[in-house]
């Protein structure tokens, strides 16, 4: 591979490359858009059954056209045949679902494999038709991207345009159908027709995708982009846009790479490109990706841990002193260790963290002392915690709808605004509040208490 070739490919200098790249990118955008709804309607397997069921149609269409004395390889004819048996496959799945008690996956598995097997057999048979060459028909199985011509491109562009128009026009109807079909139907929307429109779009994408990526891989083109997009957003509009974009990028990447290495099949590379984007999204996706979720969790855990350390220290100070105002005195590690349950290695880690944030400092004697800022922070955290407890005790009947986690977690999510609101509602605005439940020192603590008890001056 030379640099000229690379730059030629990327800059789309060849007419043919340009045609194929744009064609497949448009196809990817269409598939991403339609696939989003297919996925949300939980019918992705139906798309798979549909694509596999197109194969016998191709073989039969070839035979019929040959028998009529036409060229067996006229593309529109083949695609019409593919559409007919594809839809037949879908109808069969629906019929099996309705008349027997078979589960969806079983019904689809049967139809998918039977139609595909039938298709393979028919392709073998039509090879023997005299005067016609069936060679190349199996290109529909794995796709033959490079053979795309201008009319194919136009067809793809038209389908993309139709898909965009339909999606924009009936976005709310389709959304309602996918989210809650029963409610949609009770409201009088023709759910059957909406499903048919959706299936028609899926069929159109599948059939025009046959040539480019092949019937085995076209389902990946429909499903991978929306699944990847979902990791980045919780909003449907964005998901549709991202899914279409990811589809288009996969198509562009796949075609470009296969143009560089001419022995690589484009269909497979397109799907691999989509899978790589999917993997990337799964790990880094901002809305539901694994890493951002892990970091959010870690962040919360750190925050919670820090607050536990500061609050425990503050409570120990309260327990060991009688006079007001509370003085910031060093406390023994032993007391801290016994004050609450700490996980293995948790306390040393929290203290390290607290020291780096300049909230606690070690005394030469090994005791722990809050820094000036740590003392203020500890007093604030303890106060918030108690406000929250009071709130729960007083307003237990309304609280559950305003909180998502149990009390110990929510405390760490309280913002300044809620704290003000709590103060107003509880009529408590003094800087420190006594804990509504007595912080009972254990017997053990009572025994150890005198060791750190500082005699009042």
């Amino acid at each position, binding site marked *: 591979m030379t640099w000229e070739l690379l730059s030629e490919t990327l800059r789309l200098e060849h007419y043919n490359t340009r045609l194929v790249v744009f064609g497949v990118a448009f196809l990817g955008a269409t598939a991403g858009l339609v696939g989003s709804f297919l996925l949300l309607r939980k019918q992705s397997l139906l798309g798979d059954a549909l694509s596999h069921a197109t194969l016998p149609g191709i073989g039969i269409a070839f035979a019929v056209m040959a028998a009529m004395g036409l060229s067996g390889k006229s593309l529109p004819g083949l695609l019409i045949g593919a559409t007919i048996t594809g839809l037949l496959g879908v109808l069969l799945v629906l019929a099996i679902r309705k008349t027997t008690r078979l589960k969806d996956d079983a019904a689809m598995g049967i139809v998918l494999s039977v139609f595909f097997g039938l298709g393979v057999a028919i392709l073998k048979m039509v090879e023997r038709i005299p005067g016609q060459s069936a060679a190349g028909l199996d290109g529909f199985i794995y796709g033959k991207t490079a053979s795309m011509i201008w009319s194919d491109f136009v067809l793809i562009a038209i389908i993309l345009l139709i898909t965009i128009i339909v999606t924009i026009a009936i976005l709310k*109807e389709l*959304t309602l159908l996918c989210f809650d079909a029963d409610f949609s139907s009770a409201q009088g929307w023709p759910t059957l027709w909406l499903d048919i429109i959706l299936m028609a779009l899926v069929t159109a994408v599948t059939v025009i995708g046959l040539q480019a990526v092949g019937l085995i891989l076209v389902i990946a083109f429909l499903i991978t982009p929306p699944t990847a997009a979902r990791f980045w957003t919780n909003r449907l509009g964005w998901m549709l846009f991202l899914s279409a974009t990811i589809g288009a990028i996969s198509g562009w990447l796949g075609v470009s790479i296969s143009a560089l290495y001419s022995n690589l099949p484009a269909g497979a590379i397109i799907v691999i490109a989509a899978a790589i984007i999917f993997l990337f999204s799964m790990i880094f996706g901002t809305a539901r990706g694994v890493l951002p979720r892990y970091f959010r969790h870690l962040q919360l855990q750190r925050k919670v841990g820090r607050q536990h350390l500061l609050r425990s220290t503050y409570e120990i100070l309260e327990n060991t002193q009688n006079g007001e105002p509370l003085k910031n005195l060093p406390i023994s590690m032993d007391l801290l260790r016994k004050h609450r349950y700490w996980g293995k290695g948790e306390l040393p880690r929290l203290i390290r963290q607290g020291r780096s944030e300049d909230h606690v400092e070690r005394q030469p004697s090994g005791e722990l002392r809050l820094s000036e800022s740590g003392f203020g922070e500890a007093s604030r955290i303890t106060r918030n915690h108690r406000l929250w407890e009071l709130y729960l005790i007083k307003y237990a009947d309304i609280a559950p709808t305003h909180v998502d986690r149990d009390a110990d977690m929510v405390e760490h999510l309280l913002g300044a605004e809620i704290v003000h609101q709590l103060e107003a509602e509880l009529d408590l605005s003094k800087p420190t509040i006594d804990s509504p439940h007595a912080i009972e020192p254990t017997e053990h603590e009572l025994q150890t208490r005198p060791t750190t008890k500082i005699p009042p001056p």
Partner: protein
Amino acid sequence: MRPEHPPEFPLAVHDLTVAYHRKPVLWDVELNVPKGTLAGIVGPNGAGKSTLLKACLDLIPKTSGEALVYGKPYEHQRDLIAYVPQRESVDWDFPISALDVVTMGTYRKLGWFKRISRSQKQQALEALEKVGISHLAKRQISQLSGGQQQRVFLARALVQEAEIYFMDEPFAAVDAATEQAIIELLQELNSKGKTVLCVHHDLATVSRYFDYLVLLNMRVVASGPTSETFTRENLQKTYGGKLNLLDDVAQALKNVGRS
């Protein structure tokens, strides 16, 4: 119009039979629900409670019989009924916000192809306000608690401004505060003369929540004002041999005296 099902009834069910795979789920159901009642549909698991609601809403085919809404088939009266499906019937991972779900209640009035505008969103927000969770409007629905999700469903029914409310187990697996909020809402609807029909499974609260009762076990065992219908005899007929439930029944009957 048959005399036994006069058109002033919000819901009149005549001779309704529903069967799945030849196995009947509902059998010759006869029912008149009077206007302005807060009616509970009670019965054991598999008694066909949800099926009754769905059959009335044409969501599943009737094997025979009819359900009339103010004397006319449901397809001519869709604006009159708001439906709250079971919470588990939808995928709460769906990429939409609480406000989006509630806005769905306005789609029918909005009609085909029309875009959602500020006025629909405003209506939806007001409904969320009524169920006490307007501060969660922008939140993705999977980040709501079970009780909050149920409130979202209720809000979606409220924006429909219907005359009759069909609710499928609105109290299932919600927190105590939500249960209280829902019942207050139902009573408010009821006081405005709306009719509420509610699938319910907690016998202990039946007499407190509902003024009209439909005891269902494939057929209507009894229906009428709760004070007359909620009797030991009727409950035994409804729950039959399900002995483990009899204790619940006894407890529930004790509660009748108290409320």
